[in-house]
């Protein structure tokens, strides 16, 4: 029982990341009709927003280390600490949450610029060409990040206060040994909030209603004389922000490196396909479902029966779903079919 619960929890935070990335992907599919292979790179950019903020906050100057008295020793001390003492240290500690504030406008800007500068010109081109151009773009973004930050993963810790684990077992009256890292729990909540916000936005605003109508029937909506172009830009911006936020918050879980986006992209695509192209609910459900399945597959008990299953479970599920239910779990007719 405990083992099952912990696997579900383990799956949920990864599932949350899949769901957030897939949400943006499927939004772009459904409204803009664009297959965006650079979406993983946007996730990665989000994570590097956190890295950049952390590095900015810890900009240091070499000062004399007073704790060493035998000889003159120097250490790097962040300016923030020099200026503000403990307050500065606290700010540095909260680098990741703070970077969310920066990530939103930055990612929005990147999204809008990308849509206006590149994606816009590919609405009428074939899916193959969309895949190819965004794939090229993803490589370029990746390499630029590599040029600035190097190829190694950069540890970006969560605030100290949440760096430990929550004793979930004790809280729920189960085994004491059932613990779960606080940050992963926070990630899960965060993913839930973002998903909820996106859904609420689409459901309760006029803008959102137009977008949903556009997903159902793009031609009719453009015939209604609604400025679809500008909405496309905003939708793409939202998708970018969601991917970016998913990345920011994931940085403490997985130290960001320049190709983390590609790894997540392939999986997220599978998630979108499993959920059903153009279905927002499907993407979210499939994201969590696959995250949990993957977590179960990596249990030793399962692995001893099906060796290597943890490596391929997601792809295997995708293959089966695509063959049995071509439109995915919740896909609608006519989306992305030729």
């Amino acid at each position: 029982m405990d083992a099952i619960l912990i696997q579900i929890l383990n799956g949920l935070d990864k599932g949350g990341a899949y769901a957030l990335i897939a949400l943006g992907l499927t939004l772009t599919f459904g409204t803009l009709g664009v297959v965006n292979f650079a979406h993983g790179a946007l996730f990665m950019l989000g994570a590097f927003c956190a890295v950049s903020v952390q590095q900015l906050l810890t900009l240091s100057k070499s000062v004399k280390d007073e704790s060493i008295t035998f000889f003159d020793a120097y250490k790097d001390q962040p300016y923030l600490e020099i200026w503000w003492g403990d307050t500065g240290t606290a700010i540095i500690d909260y680098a990741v949450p703070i970077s969310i504030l920066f990530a939103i406008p930055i990612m929005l800007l990147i999204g809008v610029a990308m849509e206006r500068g590149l994606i816009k010109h590919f609405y009428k081109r074939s899916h193959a060409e969309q895949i190819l151009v965004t794939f090229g773009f993803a490589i370029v973004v990746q390499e630029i990040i590599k040029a600035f930050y190097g190829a190694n993963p950069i540890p970006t810790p969560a605030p100290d206060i949440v760096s430990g684990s929550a004793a979930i077992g004790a809280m729920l009256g189960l085994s004491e040994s059932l613990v779960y890292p606080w940050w992963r729990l926070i990630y899960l909540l965060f993913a839930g909030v973002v998903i909820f916000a996106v859904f609420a936005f689409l459901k309760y605003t006029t803008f959102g209603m137009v977008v949903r109508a556009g997903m159902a029937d793009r031609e009719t909506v453009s015939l209604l004389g609604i400025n679809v172009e500008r909405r496309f830009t905003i939708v793409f911006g939202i998708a970018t922000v969601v991917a970016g936020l998913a990345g920011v918050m994931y940085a403490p879980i997985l130290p960001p490196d320049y190709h983390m986006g590609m790894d997540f992209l392939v999986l997220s695509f599978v998630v979108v396909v499993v959920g059903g192209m153009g279905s927002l609910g499907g993407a979210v459900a499939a994201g969590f479902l696959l995250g949990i399945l993957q977590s179960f597959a990596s249990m030793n008990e399962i692995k001893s029966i099906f060796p290597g299953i943890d490596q391929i479970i997601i792809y295997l599920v995708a293959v089966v779903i695509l063959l049995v239910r071509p439109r995915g779990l919740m896909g609608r007719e006519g989306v992305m079919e030729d």
Partner: protein
Amino acid sequence: MMKISLQNNAVVMLIFSAVVLTAPLWLAPIGADYPDLLQKFAIFGIFAIGFNILFGLTGYLSFGHAAFLGIGSYTAVWSFKLFTMNVLPAVILGTIMAGVFALAIGYISLRRSGIYFSILTLAFAQMSYSLAYSVLTPITNGETGLQLTMNDARVIDSLFGVEAEAGLPSTNLFGQVMSGYSGFYFCAVILIIGFYVSLKIFRSPFGLKLTAIKSNQTRMKYTGFNTRPYLLSAFVISGMYAGLAGALMSITDPLAGAERMQWTASGEVVLMTILGGVGTLIGPLLGVGIIKYFENIFSAMNPSALHEIFNFLPLWLENIVVGITRHFVGDGWHLTLGAMFMLVVIFLPGGVMEGITKLFNYIKKKLGLNRVDSEDHVSEGGDRK
């Protein structure tokens, strides 16, 4: 329209063979005449030709062809380990094995089309890659990669009493060692054969039907064709080309690693095909040539080499130029590649071949104003490029 000489297969093959076999000569002036690079040209050429039979003719974009490349590689090394260091069985087994896998994967993937097909092939390739790294380690030797060892069986070799030498044996074709230029010529001959097969397919009723499927698959069904077997044949053929290329990789360097199966490797062949001109006969080969050549040049460059190149500029300008360009060379080669990828898709979706055709039409128009009778000659020269 049947009279233009390039419609004649013999003429095409003659020109093609001459160009390929003399490559070490005419590539010398640009410093691309050493065997390693020449072998790469030929091997990736075969890979891209095969990929083009699927993507170029039917329009089905596979993102998993690297899996077949990897399977060909592993099979070839196993052939060296188990049977003989002779390369012929390795080539044949590698191709067949890739064909078998392509049949299975294609049979399932082709139940869907469009983006779904791409995702399915991608999923299968990623599965192969993950498995090769983990569970299949006994077959693939995991991260280290599959390689020759001193105590390999080599049944056939020992049967014929091939003397064990000191050190690892090298791949050979009936005694002729397959390294350096002889390795290139072996690959070149196979490239020529591969090109001939592709030429025949392009100019066969079978090829025409594949093109028609790309153009309007629904109509093909109502015209009386069962399209699935056609697509599957094309998929298997192109998978076999990939396996062949993989086997050749193992022949020139008997070490097979799982990274050959990664989806970025699949992406590379897509890029090469697109860059050259998808659906054209020569295009994919041009794409391979351009990418592999520049990869070779650019990835070997470093800032000091750049300083030498831009030496003629004033020092401050030189520093700025080098400061920018240094990110595009060496490890940054991938940046160049990505940028090139985007530029081609944005501005020249038909690839280099489209560019050449456009240029040539322009010249033809210019010349046509003066001399109408020269048209035929011009058209031959243009196509040959």
